[in-house]
């Protein structure tokens, strides 16, 4: 027997960039996160070749889930073509040989920053959300050790107080994105800075959602068929952004989350935030054979 037969040929990087011990740790943390929905599991969070705060948490999850048959979609603010999404998608392709896609229906892993696609996700798809700040209590308790104790005691009174104060001061709940939500009736989580429009998509969903904050080293999950309820008062219903009646100027589609584009004449135009969803509608209108999936919202309303 020769020493050479016992060793593997030298390669610059492991498959999926992370070494196997890092992936094993990730898998264990992910399993724990799934077992305790909404609970923030600390993890080592290795450095990856993109800057912290640019999706390193999501990227570590994607790299761990990656296999050569994976089909990966990466979106940033709803757009596949955003520079950072392109960069991450390219990296995943480079180190994992994964097939890249922009079609939500074709993807097996969807890594996203700040949006959930408009087409419904299936049981065989995993949504990976990039999280800048995993701690919903940060605004009321910047000290992490104390916040962890508050989660342990399910002590969320101060979060309700924040919402109540907004109501008293402004007459409305002012929370824009990152709406604090109760998961599985136990842990309050931030759904990451997705708009309020997207939060109900997580409730009793068919798909698994993994939320990962690389810089803050926390991972949490919403398993399939788990309740996700935004914190609301009984007499003040949850309200999503008023985008029901907005029409996309490019695809003529109405009733989905839009990007507002300020115009020179002082008015606004709107375009679909989910960019590939828009492209599919345009292609369909031009009689191309395009399959558009079932959507969470129909006529601007969720069923």
């Amino acid at each position: 027997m020769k020493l050479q037969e016992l060793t593997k040929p030298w390669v610059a990087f492991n498959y999926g960039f992370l070494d196997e011990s890092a992936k094993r740790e990730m898998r264990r943390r992910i399993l724990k996160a799934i077992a305790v929905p909404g609970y923030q599991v600390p993890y080592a969070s290795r450095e990856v070749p993109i800057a912290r705060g640019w999706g390193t948490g999501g990227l570590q999850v994607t790299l761990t889930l990656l296999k050569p048959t994976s089909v990966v979609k990466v979106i940033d603010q709803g757009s596949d073509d955003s520079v950072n999404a392109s960069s991450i998608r390219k990296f995943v392709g480079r180190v994992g040989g994964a097939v890249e896609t922009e079609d939500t229906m074709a993807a097996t892993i969807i890594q996203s920053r700040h949006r959930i696609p408009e087409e419904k996700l299936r049981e065989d798809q995993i949504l990976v959300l990039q999280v800048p700040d995993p701690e919903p209590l940060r605004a009321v308790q910047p000290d992490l050790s104390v916040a962890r104790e508050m989660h342990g005691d399910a002590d969320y009174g101060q979060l309700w107080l924040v919402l109540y104060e907004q109501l008293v001061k402004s007459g409305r709940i002012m929370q824009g994105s990152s709406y604090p939500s109760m998961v599985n009736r136990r842990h309050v989580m931030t759904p990451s800075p997705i708009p309020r429009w997207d939060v109900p998509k997580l409730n009793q969903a068919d798909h698994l959602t993994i939320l990962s904050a690389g810089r803050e080293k926390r991972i949490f999950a919403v398993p399939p068929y788990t309740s996700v309820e935004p914190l609301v008062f009984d007499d003040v219903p949850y309200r999503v952004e008023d985008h029901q009646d907005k029409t996309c100027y490019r695809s003529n589609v109405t009733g989905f989350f839009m990007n507002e584009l300020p115009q020179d004449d002082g008015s606004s135009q709107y375009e679909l935030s989910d960019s590939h969803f828009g492209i599919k509608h345009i292609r369909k209108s031009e009689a191309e054979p395009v399959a558009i999936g079932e959507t969470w919202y129909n006529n601007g309303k969720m069923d």
Partner: protein
Amino acid sequence: MAYVATRGGEYAIEQAERLFRSDLGPITRERVEAVRTGLPYLIDRVMGEASLYEPDLAALALAQAGGDLYEAILLLRAYRTTQPRIAVAEPVGQTDLFTVRLISAAFKDIPGGQILGPTLDYSHRLLQVDVLKGEDYVPEPVIPAAKPAPATQPSLTSWQKAQGLIPGHAAQDVAPDDIPDLTREPLLFPAARAHKLQSLARSDTGGTLALGYATMRGYSSVHPTVNELRLAEAPVRMRHPCGTVFSAGRVRVSQTEVISKARELELGFSATFGWNEVKVIAAATLDLASSQPNPHPAANEEFVLYHTEPVESSGFCIHFKLPHYVTFQSSLDALRRVKADKSADAAKTAVNEKPAARQEEVAL
């Protein structure tokens, strides 16, 4: 097809990166070599913050990043994290260090003597402008001491401990694989002592100085004295599976003990790769101050360790360049509703003359 999916983003980032790299020009072995030999203290600082001791790679990272320190450190950290941890070196004590500089501010003279070693501390900070006119600056030759100092030097704290001035702590016997490793585990609070010192060892020099300076200047109850500052080469000794301990080389290290005189004599400690005196003095001060009850935020353990992490802090700072239009849209929606409410209220007041009680449901 009238609509073509725009791929402008991918093209643009490709070209932007090319622009950066073409401005730097070709990176050659000579360039890397020049960085390594010409800027050893910069290499030291980068190796410390990257927690990777490899002068050639540090020089390459600096050359590749054009001298952007945070980029260089990220390059090295991202490389380091893919490397397996094949062994844990034997512990190194102060008396094992091949010491080139050892000073104490606590006593006029110390066992082994004050050894100045290489330093600019007492130099006049004058630029050698003649170099720019083509006249080389050739340093004066060093005149060796009549009797060379021994390579290793005693530890001042041993003397203080023998005097009963500082309580001794028995060294804990921990199996090498059980030593907490910050690069493989998350930092939790209260932090393990090993995690705290590891975190300070690879902290951002500037950030550590800022918080350390705030602590020294008055935002803390401790007033540190440098008990010992040491620049040295530490032997890296490995244990062979058959039990033999052998040397695998040396690494440049700095280490400091600061001592507080507030209540009783207490020590703060810091050590890092490379020779970086400012960082270890600031870090040792923060170590000392953060162990006091109810420290000021500038010396609070969680505050210090989180905010002096160079890769995390710089990454988050520059991430604000990324588009945030979805979150902005979401907040805009809430603000517009409040505005609409106000104008509706004003209109209602004008019609009714007297403010109507809010009987309708407060919608979000």
